[in-house]
């Protein structure tokens, strides 16, 4: 996998240095899959992310972490000890030719090493440097620690997530980390557009907590707007706070569906649909046309809908919903997603070869379809230090014998 022969990409002119941990690694994946030459810089021995599961065939191994695989597609990989002065020199050499650097160390760490934005922008004034941290680089909590659940909680997402009868619920798959990375990608792209026009570099300070807070904008505005604290409503939107709308999750024949009868204006269509399928019971009675009556009879209505849903499949209810102007959606499992004919038609999934494992692995595909410069996974995640020779010798011109020395003293 040496030379890259491929179609034009949107970010194919960019070199990105990737010094991220869990909180920011999705940002550099986004840039890499859009074509940027992302060099993932790991500590000698590999980044701790490689020890996070799941693993291929459940065998814990730093070269078999699916966590590492997923978030590091399309990247090249080198190892470098940033706490070693020679390592710092090598990073400075890399920065000379880089467009973007993304890092997730605690605030102040890079400055202590002489690798802060002030230092690096002197070497390369056009550098765009993004720091992704739980709380940002400023403020009284900047040195507090956070994992994903702390981000969910402090950003306000957790309080409004889940059922009103249960405690607040954490997000799946580390959404807080993702949100931080997503906001970082937007910030980097904005800074890049600015640099395209002015030649100026930029430092970007991203806060995970603020990224999470963005996700509750409809709810959070009730505080300054009305002095109301939005609570957990299960499925329901804050604006439809009658319980019957809040509980539009129904088990059906092959799973769960959401979005069945969520708004008062859906009632007429709902009755027509129940009538068509023979499940209407007494709900066609005009007395139910009054909202008050429906709220009074909520338990009965829910009972009818429960038997209706239970008799149908997720796909039947989704299609029926589209006919009756209700946005019913299936609650897909991973297996449902992988086997979804719609995604297959769109060639969503992408196979990536892992030759040293003798495997081809199917990855989630393009989150966006760019017609002229398609998203793609150009290579599997790098092995530990896989591109040390290519980058340090081939590109920086460090002699081979020097690399042997650097390796023996733990710099690379």
């Amino acid at each position: 996998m040496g030379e890259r022969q491929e179609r034009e990409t949107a970010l194919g002119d960019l070199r990105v240095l990737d010094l991220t941990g869990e909180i920011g690694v999705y940002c550099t994946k986004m840039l890499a899959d859009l074509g940027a030459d992302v060099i993932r810089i790991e500590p000698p021995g590999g980044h701790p992310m490689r020890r996070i599961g799941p693993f291929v065939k459940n065998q814990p191994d730093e070269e078999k972490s699916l966590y590492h695989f997923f978030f590091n597609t399309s990247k090249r990989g080198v190892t470098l000890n940033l706490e070693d002065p020679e390592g710092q020199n090598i990073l400075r050499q890399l920065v000379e030719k880089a467009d973007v650097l993304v890092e997730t160390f605690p605030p102040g760490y890079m400055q202590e090493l002489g690798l802060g934005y002030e230092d690096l922008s002197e070497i390369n004034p056009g550098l765009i440097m993004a720091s992704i941290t739980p709380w940002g680089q400023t403020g009284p909590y900047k040195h507090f620690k956070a994992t994903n659940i702390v981000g969910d909680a402090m950003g306000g997402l957790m309080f409004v997530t889940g059922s009103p009868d249960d405690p607040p619920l954490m997000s799946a798959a580390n959404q807080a980390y993702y949100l931080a990375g997503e906001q970082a990608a937007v910030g980097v792209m904005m800074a890049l557009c600015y640099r395209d026009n002015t030649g100026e570099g930029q430092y970007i300070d991203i806060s995970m907590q603020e990224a999470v807070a963005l996700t509750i904008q409809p709810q959070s505005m009730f505080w300054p707007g009305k002095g109301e604290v939005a609570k957990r409503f299960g499925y329901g939107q804050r604006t439809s706070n009658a319980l019957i709308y809040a509980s539009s999750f129904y088990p059906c024949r092959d799973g769960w569906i959401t979005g069945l009868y969520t708004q008062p204006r859906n009632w007429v269509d709902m009755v027509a649909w129940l009538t068509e399928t023979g499940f209407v019971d007494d709900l066609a009675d005009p007395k139910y046309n009054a909202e008050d009556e429906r709220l009074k009879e909520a338990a009965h209505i829910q009972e009818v809908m429960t038997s209706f849903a239970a008799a149908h499949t997720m796909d039947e209810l989704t299609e029926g919903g589209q006919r009756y102007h209700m946005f019913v959606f299936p609650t897909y499992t991973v297996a449902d997603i992988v086997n979804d004919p719609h995604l297959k038609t769109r060639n969503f999934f992408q196979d990536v070869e892992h030759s040293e494992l003798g495997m081809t692995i199917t990855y989630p595909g393009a989150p966006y379809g760019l017609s002229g410069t398609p998203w793609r996974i150009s290579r599997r995640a790098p092995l530990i230090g896989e591109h040390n020779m290519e980058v340090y010798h081939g590109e920086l011109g460090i002699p081979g014998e020097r690399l042997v020395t650097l390796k023996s003293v733990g710099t690379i």
Partner: protein
Amino acid sequence: MGGKKALSGLRILDFTWYGAGPTGTGWLADNGAEIIRVESQHRVDSFRTGEPKVGDPASPNASLYFNNLNTGKCGILLDLNNSKGLELARELVKISDAVITNFSPRAIDKWGLSYEALKEIKEDTIVVHMPAMGMTGPKRHYAGFGPGFKAVGGLNMLMGFEGTPPVGPQGSYTDFCLVPAHCMTALLAAIHYRKRTGKGQFIDFSQYECVINTTGTSILEYTVNGRVPRRIGNRHPSMAPHGHYPCIGDDRWVVIAVQNDEEWEALCLVAGKQEWLVDPRFLSAAGRLTNVEELDKMVAGWTKDHYAYDVMMQLQQAGVPAGVVQTSEDLFEHDFQMQAREHYVWVNHPESGRHLTDQVAFRFSSLDTRPERPAPMMGEHNDYVFQELLGLSVDEMNELIIENVLY
């Protein structure tokens, strides 16, 4: 206020409505892009009519829900069902860098807004269509909203306590960062590419394919190991204690995430529980995970007699990740970090008055990210857009108003 902006000089014709589209173009507007938001008088964006209203409840201009997401944009009213209206829309395409819609594929065809059609008008245009399920495939005509995308994208089935419905993250979770951040990244990448090559392109953006990409390793767990991940509530595969713990007050909680033995020891000391430190069941992470039920009860027994902020502060000072499960009130009133970062910014709206609004989650070293102008009122910028940008005379505009093309 009034600092340099990242996207000055960029103009985008924005046909999106509801949540995900306007949220993304709102970030661009706050960062200097000129967003021309095309709206319909007949089909008013339901966010304009939604609560919380500040001002006249009957006014389409008084919803903070809408006004928060649409800061900094120009708003025009235009009837796309009228051929003269469509003609004006096409004139706007000519003077814009990019066009974005979240209409269904059917509506896109009806109004002649396909990429092929718009490329005829402006060769290097960038067109983003973001319908629910993308522009191709058997389900392309499906309409949908955020609550559906988190379900069909797989997030819901990964979240929840055992025995509860797969509720997923709150309401329209995907609309307010996940989807717009992906969409804006793609759009700005296309703008960067055009700057380099002069070439425009089309972006087919499905609102749930990006959601699938945010389910982490769950797809690989299935395609590689054949395993469908289970829902684990607030627990963690390698950390314990990890989760929600009750505090003094109604529905008040703190979360704690102990990553290693050092943090466990620090927690025991903060809690003043020497006996936990020496309890052989909890000496290692493996032991704490095995005995997690008992462990969680013990920790909850300690936190319940304390205020959430006190627990967070004490644990953080001892180096243990912890946080209050903050409410929206907390974010605005009690969170010193959000205040120091000035995440919420005041803007002055003609109907709602001075109100707080979100800004993006990042700050630039030399560029201003803060919203400066309020969301547009219905048709507020018709004069600016049609007279100043398109060069119509007052008479021509009045004629179009009489013909119900503009309002």
